[in-house]
């Protein structure tokens, strides 16, 4: 088995684990609004290890999934995740995010940006937008970043993250 194929397989396993965590473990955690978004973690980790086009496509698929499960404004989730996936791939190239904490912070920023685009495109009024972006989104970004750290630590050999930061 070649190294590239092994890496793809490892990445697929991590993605599958994150999807299972999202749909089976996350409902058992705290409030749904502040519990970690494992799908976004999967998207960010995939986008940071692939090209911008693949990241955008992955974001579109994740957003379509979210829209199908929460059709408050169909298409808003797809739009937000597409942009976040594309920017995550570009950001990886710009920031060389091989550091563990930078990766976690990257995910947190991606979640906040996702919420911002989602709320704007779904027509949220100003006060609720303010509360969401200043209270709930940062909390969810924090929990998501913490679980990103755990995932990266658990699969550090596969993701080849330097832990000396």
């Amino acid at each position: 088995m070649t190294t590239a194929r092994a890496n793809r397989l490892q990445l697929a396993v991590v993605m599958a684990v994150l999807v299972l965590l999202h749909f089976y473990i996350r409902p058992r955690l705290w409030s749904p609004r502040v519990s970690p978004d494992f799908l976004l973690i999967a998207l960010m980790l995939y986008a940071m290890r692939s090209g911008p086009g693949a990241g955008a496509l992955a974001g579109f698929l994740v957003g379509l999934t979210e829209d199908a499960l929460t059709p408050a404004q169909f298409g808003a989730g797809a739009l937000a995740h597409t942009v976040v996936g594309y920017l995550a791939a570009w950001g990886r190239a710009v920031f060389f995010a091989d550091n563990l904490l930078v990766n976690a912070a990257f995910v947190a920023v991606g979640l906040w940006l996702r919420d911002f685009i989602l709320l704007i495109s779904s027509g949220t009024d100003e006060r609720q937008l303010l509360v969401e972006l200043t209270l709930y989104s940062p909390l969810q970004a924090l929990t998501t970043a913490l679980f990103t750290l755990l995932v990266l630590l658990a699969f550090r050999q596969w993701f080849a993250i330097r832990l000396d930061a």
Partner: protein
Amino acid sequence: MTSASERSYTRRDTVMFLVCLGLSVVGLFSPANWGLGVADALRETVLAPLVWLQARAEEGRTSRVRLRTVTAERDSAAYVAQGIPSLLAENEHLRQLLALSHRLSTPYVAAEVLHQAQATDSRTLLLSAGSIQGIAPFDPVVAPEGLIGVVLSVARRTSVVMTWAHPEFRVSAFTVTGNASGVVAPSASAITSVDGALEFRGVPYRDSVPPGTLVLSSGLGGVYPKGIPVGTVTGVMREQEGWERVYRLRAAANPGAAAHVLILVTPPNADLARAFPSDSEVLAMRRDSIAKVRRADSLAWAAELARVARADSVAAVRKDTATRKPARPPVRPDSARVSAPKPPAPTTRPDSVRPAAPKPATESKPAAPTTRTDTARPKPAKPPSAAPNPLTGRSAPADTTR
């Protein structure tokens, strides 16, 4: 200088990004029915295993975490239910008196709420029950605390609920005191998810609703049954002078925290006509009602006449008594007699052998013991009060108080 392969790689990425972006924008601006249809199709095909997985997770969480709460609620409900038969009988009796039809019983389906991680999760909820369980669009959804929303779209095993936090949500409502009615809608200036998130609009200016008043669904419109708690008034949000007041409501149920809801389903082949009597029944009930009202009025009139007559009689007696009172001897002979101690075994009344009886003829009737002998006593001298009444011009009647 970039190579040709790098340029094609970048161009391909850009094209893919633009295509995905364009599809997202198309979905965003497409009609709502299209989006809901695509979402239903995705949930029923590709995402079905994931939805099933989340439904099992929600069931596991609610079955463990909420066991104690559910047990306590069941115990309290069982205690309250002990009085339900008498309340039902009383309600039925009152409805009969008011010539109302029987109250409709609404069947329901229990479902788990599959919360998502998106910021718009509280506007629409995904439920783990669909058309297989008999759910249809516009079925109301309630939590134990109150109204959650209405079913927006239905797939086979899942359904989407538009909660009261959705900008398009409306429900006709009235206060529990019955003095005000209006329309409840989500507030555009909501600060938190529950407190003050609803507005009670269209309340006439003259109808004042104090804080703490419970607001219920009125049943108008045919979507929500009557009597579902919607929220509690917390204050006046704004008012148009002389026209209407808009009250701030604290929602009864929080969609973001709801884990288990009830969907009030419309039974298949339901005939709502049974809730509304036919024209002939209405006519008969109206006649019956009119007859009942007339009968009640006649009884009330007769009772009033009797009461007036009794009052007149008592007044006349009191008037006569008051007129005679100054001339009456302080102690009536027979009352003094009654107060005297009786002999051990009286065979005849003592006054029957009174020597002072001026009419001995009555004494010659000892064989008639049933006749009170004192009734034959000689009349005492007529008191001055026996003079003709100055008001009526007639003599005072005999004392009937004895």
